[in-house]
């Protein structure tokens, strides 16, 4: 094993205590990488792989008469990946931990710096719930360097955004998880792009806003054309189309390197006002 691997593993181990509130760690824990993650968490491993995760430390805590607690600490390599994987599932109550946190159904998750942390109690006893929070606070305090959120999330208009939730990604499989667009990667998303998706509601009707930032004008144009050819082939000129169920889909290229897409909007005027609002927020 090379030294950087050892360092990474030791850094992860240093984030977790060996005991907390009567729970005791069952050994040092297991490490998993992108190839071995399916041995631990089944199909959900694809999510972490899509965000380029480097290493996972999984440690189980036990106490007689209490449910097991599973601590999963992911080294995501970069803060944008830790933030992205955190935004994959934003359901739950905010807990004031790390740089963003949620709690629901016995699961406490947060991100900070390049780390994503998931703490799960198999049953929700009062003591276990308290211990999740205490454990979260310890891990939070041991991650010394906060990270930076991708600036693309600042480009989303706040009005009508459902629960202020924005999902950040750069992999079309994750886009398809939140909103199935196409089996092929028609927007040419990859590690050099930034993409984010928000769900909006106006007059009781939901619609989707997707923003993508490309590293070059050429790539933006290619993705734009690709989308028109694949998705709006009969309305390329307008780049606006009313689909079968009376909803509106639109795409606009903005400021050379941005694509703004709206899906399932209830009217063309909603498309127009949303596009305008995004344009005002672009740098």
């Amino acid at each position, binding site marked *: 094993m090379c030294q950087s691997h050892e360092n990474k593993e030791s850094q992860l181990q240093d984030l977790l205590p060996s005991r907390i509130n009567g729970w005791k760690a069952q050994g040092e824990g297991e490490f998993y990488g992108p190839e071995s993650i*399916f041995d631990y968490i089944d199909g959900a491993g694809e999510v972490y792989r899509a965000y380029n995760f480097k290493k996972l430390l999984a440690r189980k805590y036990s106490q007689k008469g209490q449910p097991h607690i599973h601590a999963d600490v992911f080294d995501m390599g970069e803060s944008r990946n830790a933030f992205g994987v955190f935004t994959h599932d934003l359901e739950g109550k905010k807990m004031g931990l790390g740089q963003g946190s949620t709690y629901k159904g016995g699961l406490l998750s947060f991100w900070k710096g390049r780390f994503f942390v998931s703490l799960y109690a198999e049953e929700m006893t009062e003591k276990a719930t308290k211990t999740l929070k205490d454990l979260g606070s310890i891990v939070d305090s041991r991650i010394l360097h906060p990270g930076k959120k991708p600036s693309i999330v600042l480009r989303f208009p706040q009005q009508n955004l459902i629960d202020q939730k924005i999902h950040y990604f750069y992999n079309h499989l994750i886009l398809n998880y939140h909103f199935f667009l196409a089996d092929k990667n*028609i927007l040419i998303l990859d590690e050099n792009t930034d993409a984010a998706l928000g769900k909006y509601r106006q007059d009781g009707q939901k619609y989707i806003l997707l923003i993508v930032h490309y590293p070059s004008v050429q790539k933006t144009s290619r993705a734009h054309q690709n989308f028109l050819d694949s998705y709006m082939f009969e309305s390329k000129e307008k780049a606006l189309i009313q689909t079968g169920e009376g909803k509106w*889909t639109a795409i606009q290229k903005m400021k050379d390197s941005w694509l703004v897409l709206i899906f399932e909007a209830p009217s063309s005027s909603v498309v127009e006002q949303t596009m305008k609002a995004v344009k005002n927020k672009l740098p």
Partner: protein
Amino acid sequence: MRKKGLTRRDFLRLAAVSPLAGAFLSGPYSKSQSSKSKVVLIRDKNALEAFKNPDQEVIQKMLDDAVTTLLDVQDPVNAWKTLVKPSDVVGIKSNVWHYIPTPAEVEKAIKKRVMDAGVPEKNIGIDDRGVKRNPVFEKATVLINARPGRTHHWSGMGSCIKNYIMFTPRASAWHGDSCADLGKIWKEYNLREKTKLNILVMLTPLFHGIGPHHYSRKYVWEYRGLVVGKDPVAVDSTGVRILQAKRKQYFGEEKPLQPPPKHIFLADTRHHLGVSDPQRIDLIKLGWKEGILI
């Protein structure tokens, strides 16, 4: 000229086959085929002695009632004799997922009837992750597919179709596009003809998953049912409807499975493994009706 590929709009036009319509999109049913698939949904209030602890006797009776109804043969042993013969080698494909595995009681009930039909015990295997190395499965002439129905983080639903991913050399190779082409496994690995029965265990299904482990006790409920059929697509499609209905009931609004379980729809339309359209499923409901949801 339009670029090839499958987009959301294609599904809007072509693929809105309920129950996936609720999980995915809305629109007319596919009318491309005419035959119906028979599926039995059986429930028993006494199926569980405690949470995740099935009652062996009740499970045996549920399985017997489902199989005799499905095959239209009155006696359970005679019914099983139409599925297996004494010379068969039988693999019972279960599922060992830590939080909700195929219950031992279901495995035992299946094994008992396979033995009653004349198959010697040495020619019966029960396995999940070891099927590729299991000598019984290597020689199997018949497969019985039994797994718990639940939501799945990457494929939308942990389905009978998906349960066969373990027969492939590298399961993760089938994860692309939310596991869209799992139906292909059945043909590619010669599993379709061997499989005589599919049992989607809906005793304690998971209707919503969270976190890396895609599990919380909060989202498991005691449905106390089994969905049984020869057509895996029809069985899974029925399971999707139950999960969808539970989500709607729990969350108070339509909350489609995420990601959409399109592998079930595509197993029908792309891989022709079976029928996903409820209008083409002859669903027979037996037993306890309270909270049946569909």
